[in-house]
């Protein structure tokens, strides 16, 4: 319904501009998209009817709207780049773009945009492509509701696949409700400022689900990152907001739910970390507020490495993680007060919902593993349970400043 409404709006809009409408159909006078593009003028609309089209490189140099009816299949004859866009305000809607081969010289993409603004790519299926949608030096574009998937091959490696959505030096972008699978990185952003990444589903990518660097003032809301090779990695950025995201099933020895490196002044709120080897890995990250997240059944809920300072962890639920917290280095300025820890066994005499005994989330064994990795072979042995218990009763080796002074007795319920 919304699609038809949108088409209606587009038609009315184009009628208003007295723009022309061209129809591309197989076995008609206009049976090729690239001829239609050549014939069109700025502001025109091209309708592409269902069918399979083999096209030479499609270069768009004026504002244009291309709308597919029932997902016409568009391929490049040489299996190279399909759309190259060198104009503002180009909309590509409802096409199925497929088969862009891997190339080690050029980063061929199904749709590539260079130095433009106001583009919109919506409801496309991009299948088996090297890069999916690639934008450089662009701004105010919308990438919405696309389905981007590669066919998984036998020898999957980082070098022979591209990113599904790749943005470089962009600003004010909106990436929304896309689904990306089996690419190298699901969503890759480098030098992308003031952008919103919202409600995307990013699954089974070979490297990172979301990978961004040097991208400030961005918001990541309600995305799901599941079973990606190394989870989500975010680096060298400031003023980031991450809310209501799901980080799930990123399991493997070098896999992280969320890897933070040199992230500062950011907020990580109400996310759900489920069954990751490491929930949040943090290195060189300062002044981050980590509130109201749920950490469920991770190997490590939190791994905090050196030079991470003044981070606050509060009102989080830590449920059934093998290790709740590992700390490396000697930072004393991180605050862990007021969380719920499912391994907490203290009491609450005054019935105010806050345990009377401070909780120490760092287990002795997780410190030993940190120092001597090969001792991890003793994991789950009886001895380890005994020394953890002994250390809990009278702490000697675990640092005494690492404490939750107000551990909650009950898990927090967020509305």
């Amino acid at each position: 319904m919304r699609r038809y409404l949108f088409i209606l709006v587009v038609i009315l809009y184009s009628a208003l501009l007295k723009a022309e409408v061209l129809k591309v159909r197989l076995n008609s006078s206009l049976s090729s998209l690239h001829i239609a593009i050549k014939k069109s003028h700025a502001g025109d609309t091209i309708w592409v009817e269902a069918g399979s089209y083999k096209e030479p490189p499609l270069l768009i140099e004026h504002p244009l709207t291309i709308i597919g009816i029932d997902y016409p299949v568009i391929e490049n004859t040489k299996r190279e780049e399909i759309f190259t866009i060198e104009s503002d305000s180009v909309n590509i809607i409802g096409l199925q773009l497929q088969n862009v081969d891997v190339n080690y010289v050029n980063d061929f993409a199904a749709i590539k945009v260079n130095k433009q603004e106001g583009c919109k790519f919506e409801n496309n299926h991009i299948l088996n492509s090297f890069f999916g949608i690639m934008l450089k030096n662009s701004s105010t574009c919308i990438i919405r509701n696309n389905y981007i998937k590669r066919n998984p091959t036998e020898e999957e490696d980082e070098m022979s696949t591209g990113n599904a959505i790749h943005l470089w030096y962009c600003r004010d972008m909106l990436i929304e409700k896309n689904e990306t699978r089996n690419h190298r990185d699901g969503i890759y952003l480098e030098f992308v400022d003031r952008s919103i990444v919202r409600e995307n589903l990013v699954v089974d990518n070979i490297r990172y689900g979301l990978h961004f660097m040097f991208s400030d003032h961005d918001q990541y809301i309600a995305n799901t990152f599941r079973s990606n090779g190394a989870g989500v990695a975010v680096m060298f950025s400031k003023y980031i907001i991450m809310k209501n995201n799901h980080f799930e099933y990123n399991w493997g020895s070098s896999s992280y739910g969320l890897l933070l490196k040199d992230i500062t002044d950011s907020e990580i709120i109400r996310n759900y970390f489920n069954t990751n080897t490491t929930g949040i890995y943090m290195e060189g990250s300062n002044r981050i507020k980590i509130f109201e997240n749920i950490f469920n059944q991770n190997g490590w809920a939190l791994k905090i490495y050196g030079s991470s300072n003044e981070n606050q962890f509060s009102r989080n639920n830590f449920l059934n993680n093998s290790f709740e917290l590992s700390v490396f280095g000697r930072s004393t300025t991180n605050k862990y007060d007021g969380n719920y820890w499912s391994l907490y066994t203290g009491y609450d005499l005054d019935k105010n919902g806050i345990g009377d005994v401070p909780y120490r989330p760092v287990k002795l064994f997780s410190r030993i593993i940190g120092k001597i990795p090969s001792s991890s072979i003793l994991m789950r042995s009886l001895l380890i349970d005994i020394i953890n218990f002994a250390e809990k009763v009278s702490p000697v080796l675990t640092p005494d400043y690492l404490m939750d002074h107000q551990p909650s007795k009950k898990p927090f319920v967020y509305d």
Partner: protein
Amino acid sequence: MFKIFKYSFFDLIRSTWSLVYLLFFLVITSAILYMSGDLTKAIISMMNVILMLIPLVSTVFGAIYLYNSREFAELLLAQPIKRKSFFLGQYLGLSISLTVSFLIGVGLPFIFWGVIGSKYLSNFLVLMGVGLLLGFIFSLLSYWVALRFENRIKGFGFALFIWLFMSVIYDGIFLLILIWFESYPTENLAIILTLFNPIDLGRVLIMLFLDTSALMGYTGAVFYKFFGALNGILISSMTLFLWIIIPVFFLVRYANKKDF
């Protein structure tokens, strides 16, 4: 030998202790399955139970049984029976009756929960295999101890010490060694030390087949490379069998020259 085995097997399987042992496993396995509602978690919980209890119960039970059947042994040894076949038959009766209780007690609830046909079948089989071998190994050790020490208190003490050593003290020494050699790459040393203790070996085998190995990072990868490959599996199952074969050899040699 087979007659003796049959006799002691049926003697044991009818005893209250086997029944209690069986019921205990039935109850605890069903409880864990019911509480966790998830096969993987249940397998991990059962791993802890099995690694601690099977050695302990086999040790205690083996010693009790041998001390109690001493008169029977003396009576039978007066007959023209080879010592070797008598002791081996009795040992097999003991360990197989324990194992049967274990297999039924743990196996039935898991099968009832549909482990066959699920993708956790291999994990479950590893768990059962490890439990089975541990039962054989520890009943053998306690059997040998009980034969060795005429004094029951000493015998029990020593058998329990073996259990304590294998499940706790050994790991303590292990950890100390790893701490001493902190600045060296100790992965291969850790693998060798693991091979020498059947409880540790069983634990590592189960854990590697579960997803826990990812938690061990680089070390886990090294272990996985060793234990996950055919060679590693061969070597580790061979060491587990050596833990049976070598004590059996000593048992037979000792039984042959012991004065009753």
